[in-house]
């Protein structure tokens, strides 16, 4: 399968650790170290304050976990970061630029792409159509190119390239056998896979995954995690919401705990495991 399933290939060279090391040496350039910075985010719905002054940073090339009890505001935070919701207060900075209040498609085009907690497949489109939709900068998205004789051949060429990549990703995610199925007919777990595969096809720098493994079988989960680690090594950054503590503790190098819309604490998995407050608020003493 090699590189085609790993969308990074073209970008890798510009991303990896030299940059981070350089910044480390100079000691000030936090923007490179932390592509995503969230500062004092607030959001309330009527009487409910869903996010209440959350501030955190996500380090470049890391797999950062975002945990917290149900209703802690994790999904809302994702929505605020990716422009689906506009914050009442606070700022979101991505790659050093203030992106607060930008439209979701603008943020996606900057290289930050998210998946939804409840998978949102495009039901009346096939899995293949779902996947073909994702890649950015498709020539044929210009109406005239798609229609004009002659010019349409360019579009066709690009479609053929995309199609190969799409099939490779389908193979990787083990959903090639349902490629021609309408997405609405997929099982819950398959929808999750489709959603993640689709997000990867946009070639993002940073992925926000909202409970991507819920309902995915353990074998495939392992395989996907392995893939996530590979991508991370190539310079991709991940922010992962997940309720499975073992998964978080074993895979993330940094964990942020959200509680009632605020960052309760953050640190390495070991820090979190031994933190009294977290145990009380969330873990219930089981870990």
């Amino acid at each position: 399968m090699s590189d085609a399933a790993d969308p990074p290939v073209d970008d890798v060279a510009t991303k990896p650790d030299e940059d981070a090391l350089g910044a480390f040496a100079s000691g000030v350039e936090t923007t490179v170290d932390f592509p995503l910075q969230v500062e004092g985010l607030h959001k309330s719905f009527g009487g409910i304050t869903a996010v209440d002054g959350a501030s955190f940073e996500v380090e470049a090339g890391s797999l950062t976990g975002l945990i917290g009890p149900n209703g802690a505001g994790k999904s809302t935070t994702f929505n605020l970061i990716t422009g689906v919701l506009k914050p009442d207060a606070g700022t979101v900075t991505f790659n050093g630029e203030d992106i607060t209040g930008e439209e979701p498609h603008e943020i996606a085009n900057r290289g930050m792409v998210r998946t939804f907690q409840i998978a949102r497949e495009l039901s009346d489109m096939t899995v293949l159509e779902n996947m073909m939709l994702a890649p950015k900068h498709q020539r044929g998205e210009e109406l005239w190119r798609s229609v004009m004789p002659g010019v349409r051949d360019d579009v066709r060429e690009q479609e053929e390239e995309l199609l190969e990549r799409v099939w490779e990703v389908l193979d990787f995610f083990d959903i090639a056998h349902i490629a021609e199925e309408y997405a609405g007919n997929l099982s819950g777990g398959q929808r999750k896979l489709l959603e993640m595969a689709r997000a990867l096809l946009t070639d993002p720098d940073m992925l926000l995954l909202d409970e991507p493994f819920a309902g995915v079988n353990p074998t495939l989960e392992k395989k996907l995690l392995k893939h996530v680690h590979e991508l991370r090594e190539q310079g991709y950054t991940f922010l992962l919401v997940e309720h499975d503590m073992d998964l978080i503790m074993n895979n993330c190098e940094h964990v942020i705990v959200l509680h009632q819309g605020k960052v309760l604490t953050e640190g390495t998995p070991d820090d979190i495991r031994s933190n009294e407050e977290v145990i009380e608020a969330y873990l219930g003493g089981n870990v």
Partner: protein
Amino acid sequence: MSVRDDLAARMPGGDAGLIVFVLVSAYLLYILAGIGLGYDLRGQLNSIATLTFYIGVFAMLSLALNLHWGYTGLFNIGIVGFMAVGVYVMALVSKPVFVPGGAAQVGGLGLPLWVGILAGMLAAALLGLVVALPALRLRADYLAIVTIAMSEIVRFSFLSGELQQFSVLGNTVGFGGGSGLILDFVPPLQALFQSVGLWGVYLGFVDAFQVIVPTNPKPVVDGIVYGLLLLGFVSAFYWLLKRTGESPFGRVLKAIREDEDVANALGKDTDKFKIKSFMLGCALMGLAGILWLIPQGAVTPNFFRPRVTFFIWIALIIGGAGSNTGSVLGGAVFAAVLYQGPRYFQNLVSAVFPNLGSPAGFGQAIGPLISQLDPVPLLLYTVDSIRQLQLVVMGLVLIWLMHNRPDGLLGHRKETASVISLSRPKTMATDGGSVEGGDDE
């Protein structure tokens, strides 16, 4: 792929076979009806030309609506407003310059017909932009409210005295108010054939047609040729919209219809796509309006009542929203059965049974049913009023469709939104196994 429990699957030749079958049956029925009505050859040819005309306009309009609703999920119930703007702007641009004492009360700018047609389409598209800009950002149902309001505002504006007559570049022009406008320019067929230098050939052909229709064959030939011209336009619409749908552009439209937030989260500027799709559809509606009204020779604002919009919706629903083939089929079935059908049926009944003696009013029709349980007078009355009951019939058909074929005659038919077939490229390995192996180490 999906279950194809539909008519076309049982039809030799698939979709194309079904369309041919429907068209041939429609024409055969009309010829039979013509025989029943005692038409001579001229009458038969005229009736076929009329049928073709309506099949053409409804197929075009239903294709354009399919782009809005079937592909993008835009709920446009103001179609007729875009048609009206297309026609009126075309008239303004292409009507001859006003001469005092002439037949027309107002003139136009006197530009060639094709300029007027392009201007009309452009105006309809711009109106679409104006309507769409505020409405598309709101929830989907607002577009419905805004479009139907717009179509009535357009109609009342053309009715109003204010726009009856005004002056552009020193020309007296206008929209004629309630009494309408005469479309007193060179007839479209003449303009078309003259522009390609074939007018003489055409006139020669008309003369030759005297063999079939001895007296004054020109209106008959004009009607048939215009019908064929419309079918040509239907093919052009189909070609354009098929390419639009089967492309990355169409893929985004489809995604918008399914879940706009997803498309947005994947980096597609959905507002831009919606506006483009809406404007293109509006321009096509303007063109269809022009092609519908030009041969009538005159236009009045009250032609553009909302019922025409609903006719087009019914046509699309019959064929099945989301499919271009279905749109054409729906347009044809609607035109032949629901739009023209009742008139022919009624004429036929009164030709075959001249002395039916249907009751004169609803009271006399319903009375016997209540007092003596005699349904015959009501039945006769219904047949006699079938033309007036056209809308009721359409409603019944809609209800039947909703229950029995909610996806339209063609069943659940979605054309794949891509330029190429999406099956696995032949150059690739056929299954995951070996391919994945490579990734593991």
